């Protein structure tokens, strides 16, 4: 038995292997898709995330069954916590659901592809450079796509701004309308407390070429995470002025705010 097979037998139980194999993906003969998704890497990622999801963050997810079983869908959530842990947890929640699991794709910061190892790793488990062309082609491929319309404005947020939604970009709404993709809003509660940052050293971030350089303790706190999935929202594809698109975005934002409030009221304690 080779080392690879041995590790696989230990890390990827047969049940998990079958679970992932059950999820159909448009991949090529060697298990890759154009964005670098790799079925084998996903199995390892899934196995590792299971521990983080269940043991470390003890995630409680409500309403994940509201995400349609097939067809294009945009999962829109609030972004927080310096690292894209929220994306990982939402992805796992959907991939691990018993009925009609799906492996969603997450749109990530433009800075990640330039980071050795990490960039490729993220691509292999389904993350994709956050480019509108990528998102459009994925929706055309009937994928479920996780988007954080706040972008770095959200993830780089400081602790005193927690649960305050930053400006949402309008791009996701245009894509949802064009591809007739329902929007499932998600309120994430708990990730703000995983890496609380008190300041952002902008000159350092600029020098290192990264989006932000937070002043925070070098630990990820095991805050309990609540994910609340809302009902799918449908928008028609009429030609409407940008102002009205923004109004639609605000509707989604208001729904996410409501879901966050719901999560905050459900939360008994931080950890």
């Amino acid at each position, binding site marked *: 038995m080779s080392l690879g097979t041995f590790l696989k037998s230990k890390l990827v139980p047969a049940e998990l292997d079958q679970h992932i194999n059950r999820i159909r993906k448009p991949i090529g003969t060697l298990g890759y898709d*154009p964005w*670098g998704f790799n079925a084998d890497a996903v199995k390892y990622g899934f196995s590792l995330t299971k521990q983080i999801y269940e043991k470390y963050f003890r995630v409680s997810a409500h309403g994940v069954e509201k995400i349609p079983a097939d067809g294009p869908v945009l999962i829109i959530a609030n972004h927080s916590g310096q690292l894209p842990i929220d994306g990982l947890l939402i992805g796992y929640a959907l991939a691990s659901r018993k009925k009609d699991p799906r492996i969603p794709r997450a749109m990530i910061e433009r800075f990640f592809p330039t980071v050795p190892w990490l960039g490729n790793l993220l691509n292999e488990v389904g993350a994709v*450079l956050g480019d509108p062309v990528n998102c459009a082609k994925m929706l055309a491929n009937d994928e479920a796509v996780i988007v954080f319309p706040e972008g770095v404005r959200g993830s780089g947020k400081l602790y005193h701004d927690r649960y305050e939604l930053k400006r949402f970009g309008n791009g996701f709404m245009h894509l949802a309308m064009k591809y007739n993709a329902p929007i499932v809003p998600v309120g994430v509660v708990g990730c703000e407390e995983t890496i609380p940052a008190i300041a952002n050293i902008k000159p350092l971030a600029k020098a290192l070429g990264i989006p932000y350089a937070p002043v925070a303790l070098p630990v990820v706190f095991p805050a309990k995470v609540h994910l609340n999935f809302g009902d799918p929202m449908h928008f028609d594809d009429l030609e409407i002025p940008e102002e009205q698109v923004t109004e639609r975005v605000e509707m989604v934002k208001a729904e996410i705010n409501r879901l966050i409030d719901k999560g905050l009221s459900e939360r008994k304690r931080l950890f």
Partner: protein
Amino acid sequence: MTQQRRPHILVTGAAGALAQKVISQLRDTCDLVAVDFREQVYLGDDIPSYRIDFTKRVFEDLFRRYQFDGVIHLGRIMSSELTRMRRYNANVLGTQKLLDLSHKYGIKRVVVLSTFHVYGAVAYNPALIDESAPLKSVGLSADLVDSVELENLANIYLWRYPDLNITILRPCNIVGPGVRNTMSTLLASERAPVLAGFSPMMQFIHIDDMSDAIVLAYNKPVRGVFNVAPQDWVAYQHALKLCGCRRIPIPSIPPAVPKFILNTLKLRSFPSYLMAFFKYPVVIDGRAFAREFDFEPKRPLMEIFRFYRDNKKPV
């Protein structure tokens, strides 16, 4: 009874493996003339073959003598060959001369072979790039300027002289037996450099499939620019592994380090101006071509890699 005249076709780049495949596919039905700037190749008694520089006046004599109906221009000098200046002369000025003559002598069909390199490997590239995407490679290196200029030129002639029926093909990495480009050399070698921590998605097309694509394109006069790539993808380092290559990692950050190393080593198979292509993906969308010309590649990736794995030791 009048016998129908067989089409007369000029094929450039005849010394290359791809042109020879195309020639062998067309020779039964067409009268071919082969030219190459590098060497004169013997292709049998029925195919006149010349070593010729397109920018020289004698090139026109071929058009006068053979009355071509079509041109298949595969004679693009690759970025790994010659100097930048000579390459520019041959690729850009040579192609201009070729297209001017094609127009003057009433040619009805021109197929130009370009490359996916024109899109440029940039960190912010989306996947499945389609033909209308901007050509960013000029910003990467002056060594790729001639490839983009060749395309621009062909594009100008495409709309200025619609009668030429120009089709530009932008294939992904062409590999397989006899191919001598950078990627094929790497896959065939026992040890291949990689940039540590970077394994971009790549696409490979077998030389026989590419030859089929060119013949299909020639036979259906649809003007335009088309990507040619199979619907299959693999990460670069995985491809090397499947070809039985040992990977030699080169430190990749900060970016000046690998550039310095490659400039110092001057590896022909891993030139510094192509460095970005081993770092960031350029995944093209070949579906428009497949639809328009009813093209389906027949050789899967594993067959391509098996060839390289089984032929490590040159005979």
